[in-house]
């Protein structure tokens, strides 16, 4: 469970930093406004939808960190044989990176109001993401064909569970990306969909980061690192 505790500690730092700016030491019972005063708008100047997405990503982060925690605990038992990582995953990773980069590029174009570029960028990112999902399914099929079935070994089970959970999150993101693309195709001005593109980009970068961590974990490169951490803790 140390992974999730580290994640929560990081989150606690962010929350503490935020709360420190909220005048928690003020004495509200002494501060009464006068009729002439017009108090400032409350809340942050960051768009509400973006804050909503930020909170959601914290929840998604907790979900994957818990999976990672469970992975580490189960890995310590002696019936664990790591799964060979299909080479296809490298190609899939490249697709997801391309998708993320395309969205970052689209965001910049949307800011400048270039609708044609936005359409192209959204399309590219949509296609590469679908490509990623198809690639993941092909990787599953390669593994099952090679005899690594889901129930044979906990490493296999975790591989399918974790990649499946990540794929579902990309699929959910595709719904939002699809809606944004649809609005762009209908000719909504680029500046009007800038926020949607921005949110998609934020989600994609996050899911890419999650994927890179999961990939490192599943491929076993994280093992040495985890071993060092474990020795530090015990």
């Amino acid at each position, binding site marked *: *469970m140390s992974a*999730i*505790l580290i994640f*929560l500690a990081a*989150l*606690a730092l962010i*929350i503490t930093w935020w*709360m420190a700016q*909220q*005048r*928690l*030491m*003020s*004495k*509200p*019972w*002494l*501060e*009464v*406004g*006068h*009729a*002439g*005063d*017009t*108090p*400032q*708008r*409350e*809340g*942050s*100047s*960051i*768009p*509400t*939808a973006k*804050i*909503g997405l930020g*909170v*959601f990503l*914290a*929840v998604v982060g*907790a*979900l994957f960190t*818990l*999976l990672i925690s*469970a992975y580490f*605990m*189960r890995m310590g*038992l*002696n*019936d664990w044989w790591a799964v060979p990582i299909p080479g296809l995953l490298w190609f899939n990773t490249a697709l997801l990176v391309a998708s993320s980069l395309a969205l970052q590029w689209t965001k910049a174009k949307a800011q400048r109001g270039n609708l044609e570029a936005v359409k192209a960028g959204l399309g590219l990112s949509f296609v590469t993401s679908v490509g990623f999902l198809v690639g993941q399914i092909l990787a599953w099929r390669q593994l099952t064909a090679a005899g690594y079935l*889901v*129930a044979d070994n*906990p490493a296999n*089970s975790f591989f399918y*569970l974790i990649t499946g*959970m990540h794929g579902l999150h990309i699929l959910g993101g595709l719904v939002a990306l699809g809606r944004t693309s649809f609005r762009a195709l209908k000719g909504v001005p680029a500046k009007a969909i800038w926020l949607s593109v921005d949110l998609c980009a934020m989600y994609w970068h996050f899911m890419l980061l999650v994927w890179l961590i999961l990939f490192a974990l599943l491929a076993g490169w994280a093992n040495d690192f985890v071993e060092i951490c474990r020795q530090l803790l015990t």
Partner: protein
Amino acid sequence: MVNIPSSMDDPIPPAEVEDVELYHSHSWWTTYVFSQDAKVIAIQYSMTAMAIGLVALVLSWLMRLQLGFPGVFTFIDAERYYQFITMHGMIMVIYLLTALFLGGFGNYLIPLMVGARDMVFPYANMLSYWLYLLAVLILVASFFAPGGPTGAGWTLYPPQAVLSGTPGGADWGIVLMLLSLIFFIIGFTMGGLNYVVTVLQGRTRGMTLMRLPLTIWGIFTATVMALLAFPALFVASVMMLFDRLLGTSFFMPAIVEMGEQLQHAGGTPILFQHLFWFFGHPEVYIVALPAFGIVSDLISTHARKNIFGYRMMVWAIVIIGALSFVVWAHHMYVSGMNPNFGFFFATTTLIIAVPTALKVYNWVLTLWRGDIHLTLPMLFALAFIVTFLNGGLTGLFLGNVVVDVPLSDTLFVVAHFHMVMGVAPILVVFGAIYHWYPKITGRMMDETLGRIHFWVTFLGAYLIFFPMHYLGLLGMPRRYYEMGETAFVPPSAHSLNEFITIVALIVGAGQMVFLFNLFWSVRHGKDAGGNPWRATTLEWQTPTTPPPHGNFGKDLPIVYRWAYDYSVPGAAEDFIPQNQPNDDRISREPS
């Protein structure tokens, strides 16, 4: 989606608050059924929660009948008994209390109390309710599935939860239970995002965080915790579904069942316990923190006195929320652990009593020399303080490893958690309903019926759960279908069990008085007016009662003061609403 414009560039903000664009419903269906109005969603949440809560109440009756009069009611066999236990616990903790406090009170009170027109993402809010309803329906469906609902206990511990010896283990019961939880969590996440972001971004001008009523602080912190804790239950549920349906071995060790070797091997049930209690302990405070907040407001309003130590109350809520994530393994002392871990978790458990005790002191000091009106909400709030204190004190016993291990599987634990997270929050639920009912319907609930309901519930709960502590100390085990002949249980303990059962039946029947009152008063209650309790918070200052879609007439209120200006010296009335600016006639002494 309601986008709040974010221009902070203009140096002198205009006096009126910019309005947000609301989704307007066009038909009866979108006004009352597929509504995006947080108040309608709140009522839908509450009604569904109370309906499923009634099922849990009947289940507890059936359980008590078996315990009080073993062998008399032949239709209750051991399998059914375990199904009753499991469903009672699961419904009460998740589908009733969590849904009612956050989905019900959260939806109704957050927009009104922070001065917003609605939640920030109304569409997701609507989906949240419909997913909750779906989860409840799946849960109910398990009663009619072949083999009945799961009987694994509300903690659903593997390996027994998915074995054929447990009711519903090899049938549909456990599968439907896990699916229902998964839908509940997805639905809750949608609602929870709304509650958090509305408090962050939806506050009206002048409503700084330190001017929020404690009710909102409680619900806000509990929602943040729930958003981070429920994923653990989600992961555990998905992994157990894999074990049950796909034959994986996340949690399942090698097991021989009915002389046959199952295909599972090498899994660890302890992993499930960690995941489950990583959710399960914060869950206690997910239910308790909204209750803390609501009680603070009820006491202050009905004692006509400002809350004592507002800042400390806020800090205590936040600190309790943070600490509750590092105590989970105190539910697992009996599973065995490294003594150093046991020491760590016992220490954190005891530390959490400090901010909690601080809150109790502050409530008592708020009451001290207050102008206490023994209204129905106040009675329930007072009953809560006493009950929570009782349950909390036995929690201090159980937090210690050496005390917990012998008591863990006895009725002492049942008495403890019913006092602290069953009876206490439910008392707050009742108090809050009596308090906010006039705002929701425009009418008061009947006072006499309410008093009957209060005394039956309060005294009854003590008559049920106090003797149970004693039975636990005698060593009477929990989860047993029947005791049979045992040397250490005297005959008097059996008569005590019969007594508890009879009281439980009466208390359950007493809730029917409440339900009758709830529905009868909608039409026949006394007219309440806009602010019957003469309270300061924004929900009582709406131009019309019940508040319409959009909550506050043409202009949103502007907040000038905190939520607890009761009995201010020199003021014309004994309360000053939050949206009333300082009148220079009132001079305030720094206190």
